[in-house]
């Protein structure tokens, strides 16, 4: 099997997959009698050409960076953590508890405390499936899926019966105290003359997400722990030979993964809603899988893929707002992107590898 040069693997394959997904989406839009060029223009305009659009795109991207990193860290240990949804839900719970029940003098400290709580709660939620996998061999895909449901039910119960202020109809917590409100991009960058990011939920958590990318890159490729996680992911028998404990490494990798997914709660609960609502994760845990796949489990790739999916989310919302294209179609487009970049990866890669092989041959 001829191999692709690294740049083609990292850039060309996802790009072609994207184009294919876009082409197919265009056909679908044509099929329901709308103009795909117009639709695309609306998406770009709504998500990328105005600063408020960017404010939304980056808000969504922040969620996807956290969940994408979560999936990729676990994946380096060959663990398929699809419990990002549940871990993020618990992360949000941790944020809410810290913000509501502890007094905070300033948002910086509150953000620090909330981040620690979010990561701890997310990690704790990942610990049980991790332990069951490491000690008992219970398949982590199954257990993390089940834990998503348990997390949703738990949040439901807590919001309705425990955390909802008396007399409120809405199953949500009280608004967090003002001192815990995080600065949005608008707070940070807008001036009188130039009202940037108006009304958009993008906030300072985005920079936490970037920091997480850097930290995870260093963890995976520069530390002993990352070395051991990757070694275990490639070969458990070799790890045993070397004296790396599979049980310990699996649990640690999943704790980090769950912690990252939990951090998403800082963005949604603290940065955007400023309270904890039901279903705050909005499927970002699952999008994280696609983001990690498309990003080749590398933080830079995850970052770029997260921006792309942020664009799709925000652009899709714009479409639903301005055209007759139903909201469901946006989901179809997102699904096509996932299908082509994730599941049908080889359908692009193999023909491309052949092309490269043919180009190489006449060269010698």
């Amino acid at each position, binding site marked *: 099997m*001829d191999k692709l040069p690294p740049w083609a693997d990292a850039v060309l394959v996802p790009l072609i997959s994207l184009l294919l997904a876009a082409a197919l989406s265009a056909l679908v839009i044509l099929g329901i009698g709308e103009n795909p060029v117009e639709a695309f223009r609306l998406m770009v305009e709504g998500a990328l050409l105005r600063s408020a659009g960017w404010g939304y795109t980056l808000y969504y991207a922040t969620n996807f960076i956290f969940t994408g990193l979560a999936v990729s860290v676990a994946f380096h240990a060959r663990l398929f953590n699809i419990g990002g949804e549940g871990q993020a839900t618990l992360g949000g719970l941790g944020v809410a508890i810290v913000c509501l029940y502890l007094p905070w003098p300033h948002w910086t400290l509150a953000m620090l405390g909330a981040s620690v709580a979010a990561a701890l709660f997310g990690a704790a939620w990942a610990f049980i499936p991790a332990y069951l996998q490491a000690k008992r061999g219970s398949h982590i895909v199954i257990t993390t899926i089940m834990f998503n449901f348990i997390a949703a039910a738990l949040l439901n119960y807590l919001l309705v019966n425990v955390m909802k202020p008396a007399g409120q109809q809405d199953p949500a917590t009280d608004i967090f105290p003002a001192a815990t409100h995080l600065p949005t991009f608008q707070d940070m960058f807008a001036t009188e003359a130039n009202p940037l990011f108006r009304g958009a939920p993008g906030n300072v958590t985005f920079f936490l997400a970037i920091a997480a990318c850097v930290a995870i890159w*260093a963890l995976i490729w*520069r*530390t*002993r722990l990352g*070395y*051991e996680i*990757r*070694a275990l992911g*490639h*070969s458990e*028998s*070799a790890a*045993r*030979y*070397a*004296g*790396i*404990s599979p049980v310990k490494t699996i649990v640690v990798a999943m704790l980090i993964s769950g912690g990252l997914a939990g951090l998403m709660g800082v963005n949604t609960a603290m940065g955007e809603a400023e309270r904890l609502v039901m279903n705050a994760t909005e499927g970002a845990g699952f999008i994280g899988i696609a983001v990690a796949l498309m990003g080749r489990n590398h933080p830079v790739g995850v970052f770029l893929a997260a921006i792309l999916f942020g664009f799709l989310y925000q652009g899709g919302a714009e479409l639903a707002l301005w055209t007759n294209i139903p909201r469901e179609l946006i989901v179809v487009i997102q699904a096509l992107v996932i299908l082509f970049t994730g599941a049908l990866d080889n359908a692009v890669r193999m023909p491309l590898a052949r092309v490269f*092989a043919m180009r*190489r*041959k006449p060269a*010698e």
Partner: protein
Amino acid sequence: MTDPAPAIELQGISKSFGPVQANKDISLRVMPGTIHGIIGENGAGKSTLMSILYGFYAADKGDIWIKGEKRQIPDSQAAIKAGIGMVFQHFKLVQNFTVLENVILGAEDGGLLRPSLAKARGVLKSLAEEYELSVDPDMQVQHLSVGHQQRVEILKALYRQADILILDEPTGVLTPAEADHLFRILDNLRAEGKTIILITHKLREIMEITDTVSVMRRGEMTATVKTAQTTPEELAELMVGRKVLLRVDKAPAQPKGAALEVRDLRHVDTSGVERLRGVSFDLHAGEVLGIAGVAGNGQSELLEVLGGYADATGSVTLNGSALPLSGAGCDGMARRAAGIGHVPEDRQSEGLIMPYSAWENSVFGYHRDPMWQSGLLMKNAAIREDAAGKMERFDVRPPNPDLAAKNFSGGNQQKIVLAREIERNPDVLLIGQPTRGVDIGAIEFIHQQIVRLRDAGKAILLVSVELDEIFALSDRIGVMFDGRLMGIRDAAAADQRELGLLMAGVGEDEGQDPMAAAEAAERERERREATHG
């Protein structure tokens, strides 16, 4: 009388992959009813040539003639039609199908299986009688020994009426007794007029069974000779392109005190079978203790227990201090810290992380050593530099520390492992199958390194299923059978016959010839597999 047409004739076959020319203008004639050996180092182009013959690759240039007829072989179906069968090094069998089901797979006569199965049963029966190819047709393949699985592959080819059989490194996975049986089968096939091409890098097999032999080196056919008119030394030289020492040059050992004292070692595996049943021995500094035995008699478990990643009871003392045999402090890293290096039997699944670069592998198992840490981070640049030095000293080719382990040949992979373990200067070195799947040039180098380490006063425990290797390197030889150490002999005083008996679990007093003993051992092993499988 004119000669019959050759069974296979290749004319001017060339094939390149990108810049690599795997086959250069190769011509070959194989007469019917002969066994033709093709020998060459890893990467010499043997497998590519056979893949062209079997339709996996198309040749860039050249013609193929089968039984006097010019043929195009675009795929394996065409090869089968032309009467060519291939037995791969890694078998292509469905593990949870029975032997019969595997044999008819892809050669069913119709939509219903029953008639095909009945027919195959009859054919198999007659083949079994004709060629000593007996396998229980109703047994699931996963319960068969490796030797029997290989027979199923041969049966598959014969069932498809192959009269030209290509075997790619067929003895790589076999025990000596199984290999002997395979050669008897091949002998019978030749007697029936079948043509056999045997790809191997073992000179002994070439000398033992082939009629003619072709040597390949760097994609070229460097010679084709009658086996009777050549010597192993000449073939080795043709293969490597220089004179090769087939025997290890070594001075008598200067053994000192016991480095490792092993007493009553017992190990029970996950399925509850006792794999080590009270093994005791002393390993002295400055000697090589060779452990011979048919594969699967506890040698692997002995290495795992001593290497720290399988639990055991009993006692192991290293230079006077006892080592934990289970629980905390019993893992590979602790053993290395204590001074036990380990070159594992399977470098691909244990000794190396195949996608890791050579430099990452160069500290595998030692990566927690403080010398490679600075704060939270690993000193990757220093490791890389150190790896480059190791690779140069151990002649790893290509000497590129950034290349992934999987991209090195078997011999060079083994050198990476050896460099890692030897350069830490361990008091005790455990070595399993040091030259399995390693080409001849590298074997010579690896053997020299082992002897050098011994002469530096280190204790070496060598486990190998290759008796030749055991004899070449060991100062004392122990034989394992059924989880027990059957006795240790001075290498100078030991003879192959006696060891053969011990390998079969037979004491010296019972007169029996080694051949039969080895057969008995194989039967015993199969019986055990059947009961535990």
